[in-house]
Structure formats: C-alpha cells, structure tokens
C-alpha cells in the first residue's frame, strides 16, 4: 500500500507528444525494501522509490538529482531489472521491461547499459581489459570472432585510450582510465540508453571534466540517451537536458535544465542550489542552510515529505497533512503547495 494517493499520476510536461517519441517511459515506479526484523518481526518497509514517473527521449539526458538515500540509484537499478520493482511500469522502446522473462531481459540489456561510480568493482580483476570489453560482443553475437579484436581496439580509441591497453588488467589503471574502460564496455553492445550512476563522483576534477566531455561527445556521435544519476548540480548542468530532483523517494521538481536552475520552484531545489559551493568568492550568495537531517525513508513524514526541513514562509498546516502533487508551474513541474511564491536563492537567505 503506497502512501501516494492515486491522484498523483501527474502529467509530465509535454507528455502527450512525448509518449510517442520517448525511448523510456516510467510510470508510478515503486521500490520498497522489506527489511525483515532480525527475529522475524516485520519492520516497516524502506520506501526507497515511492511513485516516480518520467520520460527519456532519444538522444536526451535526464538527470536524477538528490542526496544520499533519496532513491535515485534504486530507480536506475530497477529500470534495468538489476533489482525487481515493487510495482509500476517501465516501457523501453515500447516493451514492458518489468514483464520480460530471462531471455527477453538479456536481449533488452543489449539496448540498456549501466556505468557505475566505481568501475573497479564492476570489472573482473582477472580478466584483461580487452576480454572485459569483448564479453558483451560475444554474448550477443554482435561480430564474428575474428573481428572482435578490431572492435575492441576501436572502442578503446573511441573512449580515448590506447588500443594496446586491451592486454592489460584493471588494476594497472587510474580511476579515470577505469571509468573510460567501463564506458567502452557499456558501448560494446551498441546500447541506445545508458544509466550513468554517479559516473564522475569519485574522480578528481580534471579527470571528471575529461569524462564529462567524453560522455557528451559519445551522446552526439551515437545518439545515446542517458539517465544521469548524480548529486552535484554543477556537474549535472554540464550534461543534462532535463533535471528531476528527488527527495525521499519522490520527484519533487522536474524541468528543463536552464529553467529549473534559474527559476527553481520547489524549496528543496532552492536549498540544493544554494548549497553548491561556487568557486568564486565574489559570487558568495546568501546560503540556505537546511535544518535537521533527512527523515528516514521507512518512516517518511505525513503530508509534504519536505515539510520538516522547509523554510518556505507560507509553510502551514496543509503542508503537514496534504501531500502536494507535481503540477506545472512557471516552466517546471513542482510538488509544493506554494510553489508560486517559493523564495529564490537570493531572497531566501533573508526569509
């Protein structure tokens, strides 16, 4: 039983025409983790993802942004069926992902890939880089055996690595190089869609910039779609066409990148933006420092999930009792009862 009223099946902006064009369409996705108590006593489930809907168009990057525990990674993993959803629907190229059997799922994974924050943990340390990249090509019979080495070389070059690296092992590489290997491995099966789960968070800034540029270039050359999961809004601004901000398992605001960053309507988006440390002492904006901690996703507050930390001057009883639905407002969709008058980053400090 979800705490979301059925009325929350909100219309995504432009969804009428997007429905036809979208590569991936996710509806009311719910993922609850049932943590059985140690002695069989059932604990309340962790509502990691609590009714999430979005669309990704071909060639588009949608960023899922939020802090740890907001459910963004669970969304990515559930869509790929690396974890089974509790309920909801995901249509990828018109196929209902959650109803596929094992064989069909395998075929689907050729079209949907994932890259992780720490590529090292997803690379087999005893397998050469070349075999790791070739694995997908072999499994999906994408090239005759004798052509595979040439494919691997081409992929390594495409991600900016020396083709001679194919004979080496993962431990011989730096973090940035491993992330490039992870990307080459994902690209090997010619996917249309890649879930990028915090792909640059563990990298130093100079390497992070290299990988971000690489991901943009690959998107242009190959027409890829990305679901880009990240916590850093400045990074996301660099790569995303649209941004969905998550809080406690739900999307609280979604919109085009420029629109959402310049005119955020949800107070949580405003707080996230104001917390980004900008490398410019002159730009020292008034900071909103949120009080308190993230509530537990196994016991989310009633009403608006953000009300316990919200600084909106109009916050009132309604916020504590009535769940705000996502609704279009000045260019984005936001789930706030008072989104029309949300203080903007420059005013909010005074509020």
């Amino acid at each position, binding site marked *: 039983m979800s705490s979301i009223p059925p009325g929350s099946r909100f219309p995504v902006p432009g969804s009428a025409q997007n429905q036809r064009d979208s590569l991936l369409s996710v509806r009311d996705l719910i993922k609850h983790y049932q943590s059985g108590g140690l002695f069989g006593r059932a604990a309340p489930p962790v509502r990691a993802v609590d009714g999430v809907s979005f669309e990704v168009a071909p060639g588009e990057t949608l960023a899922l942004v939020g*802090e*740890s525990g907001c459910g963004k990674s669970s969304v990515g993993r559930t869509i790929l069926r690396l974890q089974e959803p509790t309920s909801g629907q995901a249509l990828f190229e018109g196929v209902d992902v959650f109803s596929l059997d094992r064989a069909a799922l395998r075929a689907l994974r050729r079209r949907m890939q994932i890259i992780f924050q720490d590529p090292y943990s997803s690379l087999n340390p005893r397998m050469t880089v070349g075999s790791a990249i070739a694995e997908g090509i072999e499994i999906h019979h994408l090239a005759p055996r004798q052509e595979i080495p040439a494919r691997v070389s081409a992929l390594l070059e495409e991600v900016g690595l020396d083709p001679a690296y194919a004979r080496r092992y993962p431990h011989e590489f*730096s973090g*940035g*190089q491993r992330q490039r290997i992870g990307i080459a491995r994902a690209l090997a099966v010619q996917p249309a869609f890649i879930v990028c789960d915090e792909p640059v968070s563990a990298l*130093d*800034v*100079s*390497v*992070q*910039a*290299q990988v*971000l*540029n690489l991901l*943009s270039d690959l998107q242009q050359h190959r027409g890829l779609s990305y679901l880009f999961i990240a*916590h*850093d*809004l*400045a*990074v996301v*601004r*660099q790569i995303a066409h649209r941004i969905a901000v998550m809080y406690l398992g739900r999307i609280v605001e979604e919109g085009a990148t*420029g629109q959402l*960053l310049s005119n955020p309507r949800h107070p949580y988006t405003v*707080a*996230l*933006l*104001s*917390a*980004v*440390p*900008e*490398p*410019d*002492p*002159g*730009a*020292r904006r008034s*900071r909103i*420092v*949120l009080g*308190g*901690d*993230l509530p537990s996703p196994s016991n989310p507050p009633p009403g608006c999930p953000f009300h316990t930390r919200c600084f909106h001057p109009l916050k009132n009883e309604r916020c504590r009792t009535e769940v705000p639905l996502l609704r279009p407002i000045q260019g984005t969709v936001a789930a706030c009862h008072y989104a029309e008058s949300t203080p903007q980053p420059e005013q909010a400090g005074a509020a």
Partner: protein
Amino acid sequence: MSRVLEVENLKISFPGGDHTRVYPVDGVSFQLERGQTLALVGESGCGKSLTSLALLQLVPPPGRIETGSVIRLGDTDVLALQGEALRRIRGRRIGMIFQDPMTSLNPVFTVEDQIVEGILAHFKMARAKARERALQLLQEVGIPDPEQRLKAYPHQLSGGMRQRVMIAIALAAEPEILVADEPTTALDVTVQAQILEVLDRLRTSRGMAVLLITHDLGIVAGRADRVAVMYAGQIIEETSTGRLFANPSHPYTQGLFASVPRITGPLKRLNPIRGSVPAPAAWPSGCRFRPRCPKAFDKSELEPPLLPVEPDHLMRCWLAEQQGAGTRQEPGTKS
C-alpha cells in the same frame, strides 16, 4: 596576527624499490596564523593529506619525515618530540578531523563515552563535569537534542551528525589548530553547508587556526583566507584567496579552474587538463607539471622555485619572470 604554526621544507619519503626513495611531499613550506583558515588544495596524490599527517608525526611507516624538515608549533619543535611530549600536543594543540568519521569513531562506545574520554585525556576533572562539558560541545557543533545524542552509538547517527561528533571530540581538547582533511567530502551538499558553517563559527568564536585540506575550489572560495595549491608533492601557487580567484596564475591552477563545472554563468564545454597526476616515482625532472602543461617552454626543463607574480602571490613557474604573465585574466574567472 600571531603565527601559530610554521612548516619549513617538509620532505616525506617512502621506499621506491631498488633502495631508492620517492618523495610524495617534497619541500613544502607554509605558515598558519591565529584565527586564519589556510586551504591546501590539490587532486589525489598531490601530498596534501600526508603533509597534514606530518604535523603530528602521524606519517604511516615505511614513510618517514626527512631530516631538514621543520615543523614549529609556537616555540615547540614538533619533529624533536617523542613519547609523552608528542602525545601532549596530539589533539591538545593540534586537533584533526577526517573525511570519514565512522572510521575514527569507536562503534562499541556511545558518543558520551568518546567525548568524555577525549576531555579526560587532556584535562583533570570529575566525570560528571566532563559530561556537562560534552553536552556543551554537542550544542556548540549544532547537534539538536544533545542529551539524547550523548547516549547514541555512532551507527545510530547520520553522516553529518557523526562528523559533528568528530568535531566535538576534536574541540574537547581546545586545540589551537584544527586540521580538517576533506571534512565534508563524504557528505551531501546540504549537510556540507551545515558543517562548513559550524567550522567557520568555531574558528571565529575560539580564534582557532584551521588547516583545510580539500580538492574542492568551491569550498575554498567561501571559507579560506589563504590558499596553497599543491601538485606532485610541492606547493605550486600560494596567495590570498581573493588573489588566487581573481588571478590564478600557475598553468595547473588555471587548468583546475577550467575543469570545474559551474552552477552559474555561461554554459560552456569544460576545458580539462590533459592526462592525470603521475605517481611519485614517475615525476619528471624540471617543472613537474611540464608534460601536461599547455604553456611549457624550454626553461620548463629546469626546476622552478616559487617566484613572485604580484605582491603576496607566488607560483612555481618560470612564466612569472615574464612581464605581465600573472596579470592576464583567464576565462572562467570573474573579470
């Protein structure tokens, strides 16, 4: 301003195989004034964390601090201290907090046990009195409901709360200097903002000096008075925060700025430094940034000293000798 710490020509070496030694920290000098925040900025492997560990003689073996290195804490020659004398400055005069508080907190003791232990290690007082002090400290670092939190075990706290507890433990000994090694790197941005506020407040209210180790220029901009940028074991640029951001001069610093994605201003493709930081054994002769530097020239084959760019602004690059080299505005900085 009074000087609380002086580091001169700090060299740390590790065995490099074949009876050679490598120098991940190679001739680092800086000073810290009372009430000031100095940021040591650099990417992984630049030697910033090792530098901070050396301040308390905590360099892990087989690493060692080379003779000729000097660390002066007021009148105390830190590197001459041993045993009890060394233990008396650890925590008491220089406190440290690290990136991951969970590794520094003991999981089987409550917050109260750990703070009180910290207080009693440095001050003679009754346990009840120490508990009262612990309560004050938790309030000072902005922990809500401190009475309850005293009874909590570390795993019952969020990451931000744990880091506050770590800061409270570090403060228990009332150190003159707080070394904060990537104190917010593992935290979410909204929590990071909270913790940085706490550190700022404490610095002002206690007149503590802070050595802030970070890779994030954004944190530096809001919080530090001075900045030393490190690359390959050396400080390569040092000046006030205002000057560094107005006029980043070393090609490495400029490259870092061009690599950082911004949340405001025009959106443009990032212009990263090519390659990555080499391992200490592979540092080139001459200027260590030379193989990655877009501005390298003949003279870069000689090792540059720190040279003045403008008053109170030094960089380790021969370009400083050329007139006007340091006054050009780089894209991405405020003009």
